[in-house]
């Protein structure tokens, strides 16, 4: 019922606000700084998520929520009008090219409307969408494959199979005019060759006349949110009178949901893993913000305590007083937060690429998220920080006793202290002054010391990343050249490395030693008995699907296999047995890949083949499901099998391993053994080599860099240098983020110090004037104030140093635990650099405050009632 007293409270709050300029500026600065940290954090986190999603969508070829497939023009018209659909894009596919030059990745000839093109990540570098009848657009790689330069207006002849039917009659060859092109995206699953709507309509009619099915038209759709896409698609179909259930019905419409949205587990996993660091960081920011905002308000309430007491005397309740404080803080939020959000978003956008570089997500998936969650989340965190910070000063104002406030002076607890005769020495007085308000002093100490401790920790943390330790485990050869598939963890079975390419490379580099690694094309299998098979099925969670029977009571299970030249075999870690037997020209040996825990125990179950056992390795061309009276089971076609003797248990360094694994036992062969046993199925996977000198290494690096670039994403290489750069990126990210954090927290510390010193000196205006009146010279006053400043800063430094010395070993131990490539060391170097700066601040700020004060005469200052 009583609402309008709020207005009155707000009025008082606003007026108080106006009267406290210095406090406001410092509080707003603190709010802006902490809001920057929150927003930056949220921007980076959400952008990482968005970039990750984008890279997934690029691999899937589209970012739309779902697709209604194989529609007639009439169906498209009905569906696109549905209210649930927020946006739609149409695509009609005329045909596919999977012959040369598009053998590696097929091309799809289609018409896309503008929306569909946008969702398919087509961003024209030059030109426009196909409009005239024979206009065409495609990616730069397709142009290269077709032997055409990216020049608008160029004529290009394209042949493709109608509806993807591989018959000579279905082949269409036409000459098009290049209307535009875009940068090739190696992640995209197919080359898109887009033609005009007129061309598609025309060709579609001809095709139908010639007896082919009409072209497939898909309607890609976006809904208002990605929540329950299948449900929404069903709803749309039902509303339009279609069904997705009865394939025979003439109203049957197929639809598909973009798997990017159903792989929610993946993207949730990413955010869950990031949650803990985000939380820890947020707490640090909240604490930093609290340190200063609390201090600022505490000082301001303490110096205005008589004012609050007066308000209480004439009838302002404690609740209303709290609200006066809180309202002031919130108004400062309104000013500070938007600025902090803006600056923080900018900073986050700048920092995101640096963070992204350290992940497997490629930089061209970089998406700086503009999700409202960033701004709402950061604003909420900031408001919470501010509310926490002002709650205690608010309580203090609310609890003020009117009688006490009427005679309150700031040095209230002075009489409690026992008097010690220290004389009137300036330093002694400075020390005594620090004791007057212990809480205030402690806050300043903590806030400056915190930034120093963090600075030192970041410095040590970044310096602790040991690139050599990391490289030792990551890189076992100076260079490693392979097909893109291998680096995408897909082996070489589908796209063997062209040995000719390696020859070309070897002619241009000087190598000290080198060797090939081979993959097995087809389906590599090992033959196992019941206990092993059961264990394997159990590891899969009993969800392996169909049983298989090799006929002799044995079973085939998937495995991964790698053949290695001697050069690579030497780099294996041998746990047990003799790996050198792998190179035995006459023997048929095989080694089981495993790894060991810290105490040297191997991750092998008791059923694993023993050294000296015989193991049957097989390769199948294809798998088929056999269904007969015995039930359903899996059969393998084109089986080739051969028996080997297990000679060793080995660890394969990740860099030269198959880079993927199975749930069974993965195996290594000597390359000759593998080639002999499996013939054509043994295909080159990568070639690794060392160079004899640093000079040759540089030359080879330069050559490979050019060579792989010109291979347009077919061949890639890894080198010590590129790995080191990768590691440096990782390291730089931490120095960058840590640097920003130090800077902001350090700034907050200085602000806090500034505020405390200024407020302290201003509230002691009378006192200082009285001192001067009774004979303290201005110089002595300045000396006293500067001594106080020095005690603050040097004291904080000493505290920080002590904390760091105690804390560094703990940090190092924790980091060494977390990152195996971390070598902790001890240093307090940052203190040496920062302490002089801080000390100078400790001298200058009190001087500034005093010079402002001394503009008024002593008499004026004494008269003024504080």
């Amino acid at each position: 019922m009583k609402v309008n007293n709020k207005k009155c409270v707000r009025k008082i709050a606003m007026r108080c606000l106006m009267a406290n300029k210095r406090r406001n500026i410092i509080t707003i600065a603190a709010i802006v700084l902490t809001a920057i940290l929150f927003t930056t954090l949220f921007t980076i986190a959400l952008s990482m998520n968005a970039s990750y999603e984008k890279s997934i969508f690029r691999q899937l070829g589209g970012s739309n929520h779902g697709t209604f497939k194989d529609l007639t023009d009439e169906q498209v018209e009905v569906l696109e009008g549905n209210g649930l659909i927020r946006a739609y894009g149409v695509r009609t596919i005329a045909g596919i090219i999977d012959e040369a030059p598009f053998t590696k990745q097929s091309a799809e000839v289609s018409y896309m409307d503008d929306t569909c093109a946008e969702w398919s990540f087509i961003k024209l570098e030059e030109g426009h969408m196909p409009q005239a009848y024979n206009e065409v657009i495609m990616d730069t790689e397709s142009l290269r494959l077709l032997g055409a330069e990216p020049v608008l207006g160029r004529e290009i002849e394209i042949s493709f199979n109608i509806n993807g039917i591989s018959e000579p009659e279905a082949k269409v060859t036409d000459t098009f005019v290049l209307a535009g092109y875009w940068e090739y995206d190696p992640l995209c699953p197919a080359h898109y060759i887009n033609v005009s709507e007129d061309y598609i309509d025309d060709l579609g009619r001809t095709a139908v006349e010639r007896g082919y099915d009409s072209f497939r038209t898909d309607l890609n759709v976006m809904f208002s949110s990605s929540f329950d896409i299948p449900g929404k698609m069903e709803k749309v179909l039902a509303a339009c009178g279609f069904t997705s259930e009865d394939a025979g019905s003439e109203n049957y419409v197929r639809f598909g949901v973009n798997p990017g949205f159903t792989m929610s587990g993946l993207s949730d996993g990413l955010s869950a893993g990031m949650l803990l660091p985000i939380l820890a960081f947020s707490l640090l920011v909240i604490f930093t913000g609290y340190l200063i905002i609390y201090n600022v308000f505490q000082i301001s309430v303490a110096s205005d305590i008589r004012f609050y007491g007066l308000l209480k005397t004439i009838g302002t309740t404690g609740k209303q007083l709290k609200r006066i404080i809180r309202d002031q803080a919130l108004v400062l939020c309104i000013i500070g937060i938007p600025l902090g959000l803006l600056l923080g978003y900018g900073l986050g956008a700048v920092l995101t690429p640096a963070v992204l570089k350290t992940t497997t997500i490629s930089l061209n998936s970089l998406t700086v998220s503009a999700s409202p969650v960033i701004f709402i989340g950061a604003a909420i965190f900031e408001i919470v920080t501010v509310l926490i910070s002002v709650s205690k000063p608010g309580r203090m104002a609310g609890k003020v006793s009117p009688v006490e406030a009427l005679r309150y002076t700031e040095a209230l607890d002075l009489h409690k202290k026992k008097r010690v005769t220290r004389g009137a020495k300036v330093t002694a007085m400075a020390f005594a002054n620090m004791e007057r308000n212990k809480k205030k002093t402690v806050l300043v100490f903590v806030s400056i010391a915190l930034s120093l401790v963090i600075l030192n920790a970041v410095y040590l943390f970044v310096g602790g990343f040991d690139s050599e330790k990391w490289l030792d485990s990551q890189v076992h050869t100076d260079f490693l050249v392979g097909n893109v598939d291998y680096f995408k963890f897909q082996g070489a079975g589908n796209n063997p490395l062209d040995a000719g390419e390696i020859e070309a490379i070897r002619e241009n580099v000087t190598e000290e030693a080198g060797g090939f690694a081979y993959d097995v094309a087809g389906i590599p299998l090992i033959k196992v008995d019941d206990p092993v098979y059961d264990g394997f099925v159990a590891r899969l969670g009993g969800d392996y699907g169909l049983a298989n029977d090799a006929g002799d009571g044995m079973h085939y299970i998937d495995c991964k296999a790698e053949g290695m030249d001697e050069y690579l075999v030497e780099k294996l870690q041998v746990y047990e047995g003799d790996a050198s037997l792998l190179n035995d020209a006459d023997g048929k040996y095989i080694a089981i890949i495993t790894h060991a825990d810290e105490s040297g125990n191997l991750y092998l179950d008791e059923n694993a083949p023993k050294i000296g056992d015989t193991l049957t390795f097989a390769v199948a061309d294809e798998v088929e499901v056999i269904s007969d009276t015995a039930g359903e089971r899996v059969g393998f076609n084109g089986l080739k099998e051969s028996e080997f003797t297990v000679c060793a248990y080995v660890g394969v360094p990740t860099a030269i391993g198959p880079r993927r694994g199975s749930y069974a036992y993965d195996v290594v062969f000597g390359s000759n053994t593998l080639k002999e046993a499996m013939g054509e199925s043994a295909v080159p996977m990568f070639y690794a080599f060392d160079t004899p000198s640093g000079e040759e290494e540089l030359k080879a690096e330069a050559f490979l860099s050019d060579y792989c670039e010109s291979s347009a994403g077919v061949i890639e290489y890894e080198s010590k240098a590129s790995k080191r750069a990768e590691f440096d990126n990782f390291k730089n990210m931490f120095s960058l983020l840590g640097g920003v954090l130090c800077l902001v927290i350090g700034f907050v510390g200085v602000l806090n110090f500034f505020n405390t010193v200024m407020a302290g000196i201003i509230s002691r205006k009378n006192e200082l004037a009285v001192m001067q009146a009774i004979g303290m010279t201005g110089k002595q006053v300045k000396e006293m104030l500067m001594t106080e400043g020095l005690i603050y800063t040097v004291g904080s430094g000493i505290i920080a140093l002590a904390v760091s010395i105690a804390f560094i070993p703990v940090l190092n131990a924790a980091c060494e635990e977390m990152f195996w490539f971390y070598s902790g060391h001890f240093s307090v170097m940052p203190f040496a650099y920062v302490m002089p700066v801080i000390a100078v601040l400790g001298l200058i700020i009190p001087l500034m405050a005093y010079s402002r004060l001394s503009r008024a005469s002593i008499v004026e200052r004494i008269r003024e009632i504080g």
Partner: protein
Amino acid sequence: MSILSAKNLMKVYGQGENQVKALDGVNLEVNKGEFLAIVGTSGSGKSTLLHMLGGLDRPTSGEVIVDGKNTASLKDDELTIFRRRKIGFVFQAFNLVPVLNVYENIILPIELDGEKVDKEFVEEIIDTLMLSSKKEALPNQLSGGQQQRVAIARALASRPAIILADEPTGNLDSKTGQDVLSLLKVSAEKFSQTLVMITHNDEIAQLADRVIRIEDGRIVSESERR
């Protein structure tokens, strides 16, 4: 009719040997519309008595009944609300809210209560106290006498049960003090207010209907003017 009564009021500060009895069994009745002066030297306990009567502080024992309500039973915030509705204060140091102008200071207790301001009534008070030309001024733009008149207006504006004045002329020169005092008396009469004033000045006390002298926390004499 009694609007304010204190029964056996005790206030003890400190403990044991340091114990100081600021009030030692004070009994007091104030009738509606009466002007009572409490005189005493500094340290006699008169300010403590005023704090107890005004609900600024709680007695160690005894009770204060204002307008039929026992203040001892109220919680802190209830006491605050009671104060702004029932009691108008005039302090020696004026104690105006520095960030609010004259008019806002006067209506502050009403607004804090969430009540509608009776503009006509407030204007009448302002006229009576000759502040019409200063309504927009901030406290620091006023002379001491003017500030005290604003304080008096603030005390009257919420139509309290009682006005408590603590040395209202203490910070003023004698001429201004007299002017302010007579305005206080006139306006209390005009708006039929009960007025309790503390002073150490016998001359000023003579303006009151009744004078109580307090020493060492006890009432030692009482005289009534006829």
